[in-house]
């Protein structure tokens, strides 16, 4: 059987979901027998050297580049899996959704105690070389169709493992209650 190809990326997430994938511990050594990790977190069409079987997304979309990546993942991955609260619902970064973006920027760059008296030109980062921030943080399913949702912050390693095995082997996904028990 040809190895399934997996691609992963972190959008507006904290990498905790990726760390939870690593928490499958020794099983990661079994996993690499079953799948081929696409060699990079993929960014645009040129780097999608292969079509992928499974795309795993951590984090929602907080800037234009996140949206771009997500669209590319949808286009090139047969099955799109979102892992974690941030990708599913926006998560902690979406706490800014009730606040005008300008207030967030002002607080960070103009008003904070270590910048207030030393930013006389009132610089707020804004450059063609950095992405544009969206008005709010969007969960992935508001942008593209998502096939599989794995909840948790982060999802437990066992849940990720069971889901991966099911997706790779085509077996039915077992969902014992314990893997969904949160903090």
């Amino acid at each position, binding site marked *: 059987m040809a190895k399934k190809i997996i691609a992963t990326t972190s959008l*507006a997430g904290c990498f905790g979901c*990726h760390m939870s994938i*690593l928490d499958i511990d*020794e099983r*990661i050594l079994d996993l690499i027998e079953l799948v081929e990790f696409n*060699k990079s977190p993929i*960014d645009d069409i040129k780097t999608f050297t292969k079509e992928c079987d499974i795309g795993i997304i951590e984090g929602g979309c907080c800037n234009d580049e996140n949206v771009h*990546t997500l669209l590319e993942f949808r286009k090139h991955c047969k099955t799109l899996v979102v892992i974690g609260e941030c990708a599913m619902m926006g998560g902690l970064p979406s706490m800014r959704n009730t606040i005008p973006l300008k207030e967030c920027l002002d607080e960070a760059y103009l008003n904070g105690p270590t910048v207030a008296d030393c930013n006389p030109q009132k610089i707020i980062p804004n450059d063609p070389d950095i992405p544009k921030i969206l008005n709010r943080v969007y969960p992935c399913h508001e942008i593209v169709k998502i096939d599989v949702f794995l909840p948790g912050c982060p999802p437990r390693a066992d849940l990720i493992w069971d889901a991966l095995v099911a997706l790779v082997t085509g077996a039915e996904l077992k969902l014992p209650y314990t893997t969904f028990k949160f903090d």
Partner: protein
Amino acid sequence: MSKKIVIEPVTRVEGHGKVTIHLDDQGNVAQSRLHIVEFRGFERFVQGRPYWEAPVLVERLCGICPVSHHLAAAKAVDVIAGAGTGDGLTPTAEKIRRLMHYGQMFQSHTLHFFHLASPDLLFGYDAPPEQRNVIGVALANRELATQAVLMRKYGQEVIAATAGKKIHGTGAIPGGVNKSLTIEERDTLLKGRAPLNADKMIAWSQGALAFFKDYYKKNKAFIDGFSQFPSNHLSLVRKDGALDLYHGVLRAVDAAGKKILNDVDYQDYLSHLREEVRSWSYMKFPFLKILGKEKGWYRVGPLARLNTADFIPTPLAQKEFEAFKAVTGGKPNNMCMHTHWARLIEVLHSAEVIRDLLLDSDITGTDLVTKGKWQPVGVGVIEAPRGTLMHHYRVNEDDLITMANLIVSTTHNNEPMNRAVNCVAKAMMTGQKEITEPMMNAVEVAIRAYDPCLSCATHAYGQMPLEVSLYDATGKLISQRRK
């Protein structure tokens, strides 16, 4: 003809870091920049939340070392809850937190060394990219890979036992902790299921150090010379000058070892630090106030810590520390690649501290929380795996946060990482017409030595992609290379 080179080490759309290099008409590096391209807005959106939520909210900014944020926030809210400024916790609470923290240090450093550094060391910097990642390590040397996975697992289990969960735990609360270890939990970590026990972790840490030192012997010129430049160094140290990753006073030394910040109380950090905002990066640039924006930048992290500390308070790590210091005759070490060495000494130190804490009877105690007189302001500082991490909160009489200021480790290293990129770009790209893979690798290696969280995580899954584009002065693409 002037040129602009763009390198996106963590991929553009990963949205974390990107390098641009401008070459002038003569092909000299006119300017280089590491852009940090993410913005969360935490400082503002946490306002209005009860302060006791801070330790569990803020850790979700970084899932690679969430314990560090959890504890820095907890130390700040301790002050607000009237539990003192680092010396007010019960012995059990303080030791449980330390155990959590050193468990974190152990797993995070292990992850960095094995998943990130070892592929380069095992296969060489010019090996095929497909091989140069942790999966390559696993395929080539299953024993080393298994050891890596198990060391990280051990650190994660220490965290789970103290924080309740491996990632984004809840163990620290204002004034203390919400659980201590049961005797059973302690014994599992101490004696453990083979091979996961405290002594084994010490032995494996020594093995990793031996591996590095052997590599150093064979590649001395590279390790000493690559991307090295003088800088100031900042970290916490214990009051007596010992390395302490959980608590202490702020000390900074210059490149020659002169103290420029002399063991000050971090509650007063505002008297000493400021941050500069630059339009091309969402990450700010901290500097020491007395030296100003130009000269006041500094490095933090393992290398900085071994430069500021006078000694390491565990015997095996102290011996390694002495050997490390001997290389520079006791003076600060400004060699970027020696950070890997320093990191491994801290791995060994962490393993020793974990074992000692597990042998301490306080670790199973029941006196968990200190209460005291409420204060409106609190600052918490901790040495995270990547360096000094600062949290500062102000609250109103309803206990709601009115101001939050965070300076995270990677931010402290903003200017040094930019210098490192500049240093390598100058050395490798001056006058070059074509960008080759070794040049891109070199930039990558320089940034990676600082272990910015995101490249580290990216590496957990494979080779960090790089894209280099050459533009002419009008912005027209004239050459592009990817790997």
